[in-house]
């Protein structure tokens, strides 16, 4: 079942028979990669601050496009999901609340959803 074989690769993309915790694990990995990419971009772009006002201000003007806003919203969503799920993993890994793993998973997912909606409202509807 768990032996690597070409046939098992296809199982990766089979969404059935997965525990909620597995989804959390997959989501944590995907958001990790996205956030790492964002961190690199963020550090590079902020380098414009060292080039003076003209370089930075013209970049910020460019960053007002709707496409950038959608990208920023994705980063915020990834950060919230990764942060709260990570906190859940940290709590249970250190031996706390191990009897309430399932409840913690739902709590972190629901809280993430609420926070993402609040941020989306602030970003796209202005408050």
């Amino acid at each position, binding site marked *: 079942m768990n032996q690597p074989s070409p046939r098992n690769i296809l199982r990766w993309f089979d969404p059935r028979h997965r525990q909620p915790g597995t989804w959390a694990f997959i989501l944590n990995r995907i958001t*990790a*990669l996205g956030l790492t990419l964002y961190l690199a971009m963020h550090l590079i772009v902020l380098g414009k601050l060292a080039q*003076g006002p003209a370089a930075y201000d013209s970049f*910020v003007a460019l960053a007002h496009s709707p496409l950038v806003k959608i990208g920023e919203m994705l980063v915020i969503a990834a950060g919230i999901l990764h942060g709260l799920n*990570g*906190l859940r*993993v940290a709590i249970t890994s250190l031996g706390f609340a191990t009897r309430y793993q399932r409840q913690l998973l739902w709590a972190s997912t629901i809280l993430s959803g609420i926070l993402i909606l609040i941020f989306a409202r602030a970003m796209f509807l202005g408050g």
Partner: protein
Amino acid sequence: MTQISHPSNPKEPLGLWLFKIITGPIILVILTIHFLVNHLLAPNGLLTYAEVIAYYKNPIVPIMEIIFVCFAVAHSLTGLRGIVLDLNPSQRILRIFDWLLLILGSTAILYGIWLALTIASA
């Protein structure tokens, strides 16, 4: 604390796993402050060069940002290593990758510190 479980790859040293677990909440706290200050306290959201420079005049800001960049880079590259471990790399590939991450991480942290100090002294 009863027992520390290690749900990630067993090939990952326990120390690295704990490092991610400990730096994660620290990053979460600094990120929350970063967001509150940048987007609620700063009237226009620090969107101009002049505003950023004024914000960095408070010495707490560059100190916080430097701590932030150190933890964020280290946490993110430790996590990347964990993902690569899941691909079952050979010892040789893993050693090369470790060096790559070490060089990349040190460069990113040194650059981040330089940038924060440059902005603070502008």
